[in-house]
């Protein structure tokens, strides 16, 4: 009998087919809101998963191009770039129907960015990604492709810069010009006529490279402001379009004596034409400066802060918020917060009860800054502070509204349409109002994410417990979504205007959808 068993095992093993896509690591892009749906790209299985936040449609799964690498939302759905190295393509997926139109493209690009109008897609390589299987073992990272998503005209062009690779694509507010940020250059491309382009090297005499760390278009699209970690000057690239094509010149904007450029912001509104705000902070001083892109020093405004800060944000109505953002300078943890109205030179500063520890939520003319545990006579608790700038006669005042949380906040989302800050706060499942752990009728162990809604104007607070921890919050259509941990996909949707468990809907395991309906694998 032992011999028989051995023969059976040998026979069974001879039929196995070895490794394939099923054994590759799980790789997912998303969620991306598109056409009122929430979309994930299961890159390993080449499946697009589409969830309808209203629940009107069942979760849908669409097969897309093999070896998909990236996706981006369009006005009608999403585009997915991918394909075998010898057969690269761009899938245009309409939503919610899921119809796929495939466009052949000249290279197996790694990323896709779509203009705000949804008309143009810019495809570019990721220098850190290996070439697609079956494709050339080397590639020109200066090559990009522009696809007109209406006419499906594909234009391949080489930027021919001295830079090694693109890092980011920005679009002008009107969507007509793309700025491709490379590691030592910026290329400006007119999307309707990609042959019309100009490149601006970010190099100083002597060969020193100014690597872009951040770039922002002016609201009018006539300037592109670039911050480099290698310089204290703000680089203002003029974007001039005319019958002769596109032209650009570069101005180096600086404030005498200021060192340590930490952040830039572009305020919108009357009086801010050609203006860029910059925050400088080093060991000796912290300055907020409004600079004129055309170099007119008479339009410069500045304020000096008593404490270090690392970030700027436009609050609208000519006001800027100055604070410390751990993303800009993790080592700098200060409690500084300030309001600045540069055009009338009004300024006020204050300090929070603890350093900022998570990205701020900005909107409705104010901001909420999550910060470290705070201690009071009643104990230690997690907290955030709502900040508004008030016009107090001749003076601008920073008004702080501390809010004590029942536990650490794991995610936040400022929701403009409802003027509400949504927070997820970690709470004990027991007695929270949440259901038991899935699969049990009485196990109330562990934590859940409690959704908290804070009205930005009145600070009125409401909330609802969800049935699992929350890792991210977002909005799609009229619904709020809360992502839960787990690599099968787990999400809860709620109407943004009604935080009610009875109206909530959870989808668990959506990344496993459609796996049995995949087409036969295309063999390289």
């Amino acid at each position, binding site marked *: 009998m032992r011999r028989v068993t051995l023969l059976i095992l040998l026979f069974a093993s001879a039929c196995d087919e070895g490794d394939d896509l099923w054994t590759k690591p799980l790789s997912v892009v998303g969620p991306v809101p598109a056409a009122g749906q929430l979309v994930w790209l299961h890159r390993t299985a080449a499946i697009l998963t589409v969830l309808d936040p209203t629940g009107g449609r069942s979760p849908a799964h669409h097969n897309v191009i093999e070896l998909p690498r990236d996706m981006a939302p369009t006005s009608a759905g999403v585009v997915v770039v991918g394909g075998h190295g010898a057969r690269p393509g761009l899938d245009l997926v309409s939503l919610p129907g899921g119809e796929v139109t495939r466009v052949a493209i000249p290279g197996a690009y790694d990323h896709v960015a779509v203009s705000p109008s949804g008309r143009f897609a810019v495809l570019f390589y990721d220098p850190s990604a290996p070439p697609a299987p079956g494709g050339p073992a080397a590639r020109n990272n200066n090559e990009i492709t522009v696809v007109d998503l209406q006419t499906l005209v594909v234009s391949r062009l080489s930027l021919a810069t001295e830079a090694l690779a693109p890092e980011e694509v920005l679009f002008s507010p009107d969507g007509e010009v793309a700025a491709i940020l490379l590691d030592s250059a910026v290329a400006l491309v007119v999307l309707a006529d990609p042959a019309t382009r100009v490149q601006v090297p970010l190099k100083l005499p002597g060969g020193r490279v100014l690597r872009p760390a951040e770039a922002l278009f002016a609201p009018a699209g006539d300037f592109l402001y670039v911050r480099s970690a290698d310089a204290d000057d703000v680089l203002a690239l003029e974007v001039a379009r005319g019958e002769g094509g596109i032209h650009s010149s570069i101005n180096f904007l600086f404030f005498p004596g200021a060192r340590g450029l930490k952040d830039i912001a572009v305020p919108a509104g009357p009086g801010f034409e050609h203006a860029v705000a910059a925050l400088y902070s080093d060991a000796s001083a912290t300055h907020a400066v409004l600079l004129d892109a055309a170099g007119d020093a008479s339009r410069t405004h500045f304020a000096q802060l008593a404490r270090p800060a690392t970030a700027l944000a436009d609050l609208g109505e000519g006001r800027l918020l100055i604070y410390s953002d751990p993303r800009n300078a993790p080592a700098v943890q200060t409690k500084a917060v300030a309001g600045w109205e540069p055009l009338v030179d009004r300024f006020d500063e204050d300090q929070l009860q603890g350093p900022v520890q998570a990205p701020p939520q900005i909107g409705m003319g104010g901001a909420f800054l999550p910060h470290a545990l705070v201690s009071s006579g009643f104990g230690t608790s997690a907290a955030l502070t709502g900040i508004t700038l008030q016009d107090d006669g001749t003076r601008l005042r920073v008004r702080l509204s501390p809010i004590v949380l029942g536990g650490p906040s794991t995610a936040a989302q400022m929701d403009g349409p409802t003027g509400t800050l949504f927070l997820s706060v970690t709470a004990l499942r027991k007695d929270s109002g949440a259901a038991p752990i899935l699969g049990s009728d*009485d196990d109330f162990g562990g934590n859940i994410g409690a959704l908290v809604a804070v009205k930005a104007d009145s600070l009125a607070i409401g909330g609802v417990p969800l049935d699992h921890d929350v890792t991210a919050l977002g909005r799609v259509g009229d619904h709020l979504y809360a992502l839960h941990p787990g690599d099968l996909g787990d999400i809860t949707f709620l109407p943004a205007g009604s935080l009610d468990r009875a109206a909530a809907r959870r989808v668990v*395991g959506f990344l496993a959808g459609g796996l049995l309906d995949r087409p036969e694998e295309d063999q390289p």
Partner: protein
Amino acid sequence: MSALFIALALSFAGRTEAPERELTLSSSMGAGYVADSAFRLVSEGSTFPQLELGAGYAPRWLDERLTWHLGLTVGWSGADRFQAWTASLLTRSLHASAGYSLSPLSFARLYGRAGLIFDLATLTVASDSSAGDLVDRSVSAGLLGSLGIEVALGEGAWSLYLESGYGQRLNDLRFDELAPDVESSTPAAISITSVDAGGLDLSGAFWKLGISMRL
């Protein structure tokens, strides 16, 4: 490969005579070969290991070469997927068939069978990082046909048999309500929407090697 099994069986062979007893119990192990590529979700290959318990009845008053057979087959396959999940398929299949045998050799009996099969399948997808296992159940039905050889072990009631055939399913297993099991509780859980994982066709060839005993 089959020749090896036959040679092995012959080494144990005794004389096979026309069955004198009407009832037979059997047990076998074997494998199906699922052609549908979707099966790769739960298997490293197309092999679907199976165990079977069966009972046969020979209505000698009707035809001494005819056998009616009823069997229960349990199949299971599971695999780690995407370096993050485990996916498994459990099937319980009930099959009823009629067989007809010939005894051209003194020590062996050849037979053929044809019948119906009903499958109840459970698909489970799990991940350590997720809140609950995803489970769905589905049914399918189909037709079976097989050929086999049975060799008597010595002079007693025991026999060794090797059988191979093909099962054609008439419908796919549809796993379109994949979701965690939710218990009734207070407070009630937030409503969960299920997910459609797709369909799986269990059709394919199979073989089994077993022993049987005449009662």
